[in-house]
């Protein structure tokens, strides 16, 4: 148990990064967001899974 | 037989009548203006005609079919402020609209491109609608109403939200479109109706105040009035004052080189005034005989 199997954890990190990147692309393309854009950038980059979910469900005014 | 026959159409919201028993017909190929101030019931009427609102009473018959038959396939509708899916491109929306009105995929694609070209949107066809200006959206709205070649086009205030250039563009399009299909459009601007329509239905407070062909209404609502504007020269002003004493004159108001004469005989008055003006070399700027009072009628209806 001492050795952490990075082969198993890496995909999880990759998916988290993918989610944040998709969120950032969407944020760059949409004009209308609730609240300031920089706040969503911070949430997407540092907010982990919940930050991304919050952006996709609540952040955008349309779509 | 009229293409559209509306009989005693009524709609009330919470007991308050918005449209109160109106009847009219629209002959195929005509352009009908639904004219009236805001709140006259024009939008409610058009929405009922488009099948978006169930009438409280009365009937609508299309193409001689019994009332209640679904004629939306033959219908093009443009609401007052059309809303589109902002993430779609103009072309995608047109194809979507054409398919929903029963067109096959291939036909929908080719017709959509052609109609967008016609309304001057072909260069923006592949751009997101979210980036369109107000005038472009209105033209897209017109295009989606036309794409399936409807027999009846319902347009709710198609030009009122546009700037003068956009308004000009859409009016030119309408002038074109009215040659090929039946159009009913609402407006609160008399001038728009006079510009392109054959028939006028003047509505106020949910009822029809006056209706008929524009030509008939013009003849009926014209007063024996002569309007003259001259250059502001002493000679001209003196001449206008002298006109007060003519036999045909009933009432005159003159100010600043502008005169409005109520006369007993328009034909006689016109002949005499023009002869005198020519003989005396009066610097006439404007001359108008037998002016229409549609504007006055409209203002009277609007004002009450």
């Amino acid at each position, binding site marked *: *148990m001492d050795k952490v199997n990075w082969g198993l*954890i890496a995909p999880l990190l990759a998916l988290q990064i993918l989610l944040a990147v998709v969120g950032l692309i969407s944020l760059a393309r949409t004009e209308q967001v609730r609240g300031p854009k920089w706040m969503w950038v911070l949430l997407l980059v540092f907010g982990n*899974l919940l930050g991304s979910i919050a952006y*996709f469900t609540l952040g955008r005014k349309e779509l | 037989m009229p293409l559209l026959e509306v009989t005693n159409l009524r709609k009330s919201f919470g007991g308050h009548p918005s449209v109160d028993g109106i009847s009219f017909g629209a002959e195929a190929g005509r352009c009908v203006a639904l004219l009236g101030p805001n709140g006259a019931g024009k939008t409610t009427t058009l929405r009922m005609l488009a099948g978006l609102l169930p009438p409280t009473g009365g009937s609508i018959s299309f193409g001689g079919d019994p009332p209640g038959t679904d004629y939306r396939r033959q219908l093009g*509708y443009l609401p007052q402020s059309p809303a589109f899916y902002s993430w779609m491109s103009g072309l995608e929306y047109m194809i979507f609209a054409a*398919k*929903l009105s029963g067109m096959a995929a291939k036909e929908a694609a080719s017709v959509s491109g052609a109609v967008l070209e016609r309304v001057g949107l072909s260069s923006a066809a592949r751009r997101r609608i979210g980036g369109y200006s107000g005038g472009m959206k209105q033209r897209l709205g017109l295009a989606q109403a036309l794409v399936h070649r409807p027999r009846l086009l319902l347009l709710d205030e198609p030009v009122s939200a546009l700037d003068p250039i956009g308004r000009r563009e859409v009016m030119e399009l309408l002038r074109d479109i009215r040659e090929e299909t039946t159009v009913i459009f609402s407006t609160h601007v008399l001038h728009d109706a006079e510009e392109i329509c054959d028939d006028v239905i003047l509505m106020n407070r949910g009822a029809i105040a006056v209706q008929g062909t524009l030509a008939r209404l013009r003849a009926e609502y014209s007063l024996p009035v002569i309007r003259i504007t001259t250059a502001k020269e002493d000679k001209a002003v003196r001449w206008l004052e002298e006109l007060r004493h003519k036999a045909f004159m009933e009432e005159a108001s003159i100010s600043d080189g502008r005169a409005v004469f109520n006369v007993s005989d328009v034909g006689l008055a016109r002949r005499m005034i023009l002869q005198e003006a020519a003989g005396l070399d009066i610097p006439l700027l404007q001359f108008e005989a037998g002016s229409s009072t549609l504007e006055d009628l409209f203002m009277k209806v609007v004002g009450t």
Partner: protein
Amino acid sequence: MSKLWTLYYREMLEAVRSYKLIWIPVVFIILGIMQPLVTFYMADILAASSNVPAGFMDSYEMPGAAAVMAQALGQYGTIGILILVLGTMNSLAGERSSGTAELLMARPVSPVSIVVAKWAANFTVLIIALVLGVAGAAYYTVQLMGGLAWGAVAAASGLYALWLLCAVSLTLLFSAWLRGPAAAGFALLLAAGMSLAHSLLPSRTAWLPAALPGMSASVLAEGRVTGGPMISAALLIVACIAGASLLVRRNKLPN
């Protein structure tokens, strides 16, 4: 039929352009693989934080593969359901509030086909997300804990999908009537209420759709399946679609 396809195609196009078809499946995969990973490394995680009582570690026992799989599905019953409901809430409400419904309803399309197209699109997103999520969870579970009975995993996922679909269908129904956030609230409240009723009185409410998550877990533990919840879930879904269609027919316009 071709109009239904046109409407469905539009819905799916929107799901792609709004990134819904990417982000919801990705979140489901993350939720799915996080469960076995966290369970597997629980001992290390606890050891890393210093304030764990000394004897605690000895009593920790690694759960079996089937139990971990059931826990992973359980994630979809909380965060998953929330995401799906929030993703569905504006389906009909958004068309009304933005005004796009007016142009849509002036075309010769039936309210039923509009509702069915939206339902089918949300169903598609749900299935894609759940299949990928379960595949991820199962793969990690097999790697870390040991073998799984694939038939049982498929059956358990199917039962869970039905429960999630009930929540999505309820959201669609309320979305035909209320504004988006209110629709989501009511749907979640109703789903939670059903679950609560089922947990308080399991024997009397065994026929409720809310019994599906429990049944899903018991299938993994080689338990029995009864038809009641599946039938009531199917009825609920059909009723939601019918009700939404009636509401769309009545409220064609926002005012």
